[in-house]
């Protein structure tokens, strides 16, 4: 049962344009969401997060939007750069005590110069 879904395995975007990566989740109890970026032969690195009490969080070129009613979040990268080419994982967790992080299967972003 995949509770966090990234339905697009890959995405290609021209340099300078906006990249939009999408993530859907099924469990309404999730209350903390994260995006990780992974380059080949490296481990995932934390990119940006959002709490369920917010609907937007911004950090430089990266913005995460959360739509709780639709159980959907998205990562916007503006402007996209070739160095952004990587696999992006969406992840979610619950509050209270230990609750494991549930990851999506990832979306491979290619930014074309």
């Amino acid at each position, binding site marked *: 049962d995949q509770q966090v879904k990234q339905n697009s395995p890959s995405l290609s975007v021209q340099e300078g344009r906006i990249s939009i990566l999408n993530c859907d989740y099924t469990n309404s109890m999730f209350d903390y969401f994260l995006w990780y970026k992974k380059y080949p032969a490296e481990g995932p690195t934390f990119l940006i997060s959002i709490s369920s009490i917010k609907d937007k969080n911004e950090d430089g070129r990266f913005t995460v939007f959360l739509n709780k009613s639709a159980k959907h979040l998205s990562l916007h990268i503006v402007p996209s750069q070739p160095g952004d080419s990587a696999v992006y994982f969406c992840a979610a967790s619950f509050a209270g005590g230990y609750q494991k*992080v549930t990851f999506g299967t990832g979306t491979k972003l290619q930014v074309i110069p």
Partner: protein
Amino acid sequence: DAMVIQNPRYQVTQFGKPVTLSCSQTLNHNVMYWYQQKSSQAPKLLFHYYDKDFNNEADTPDNFQSRRPNTSFCFLDIRSPGLGDAAMYLCATSRDLVGLSNQPQHFGDGTRLSIL
């Protein structure tokens, strides 16, 4: 720089031959995790340590064991590797338990395990 280091980066072992993967951290984090990731799949949590307390996921095979002799080190032991255990194994740390602190996890670069 504080970091999570996994050794070796690539490990080849024979079917049924025990293998140990290593993870060390300089972050002084309380929690250490082991994930298994197969191609095009989400990372799958195997177990975690909160300090010395070991927590196994319900669906983690008995073939997989872990040791944490001190704060800095954590090992993944696969007692009798099968062909299905070929995967990337990721170690991660966090300062506190997920859900208590909303802190992200810090990952090592992984060990790619091949089974002959």
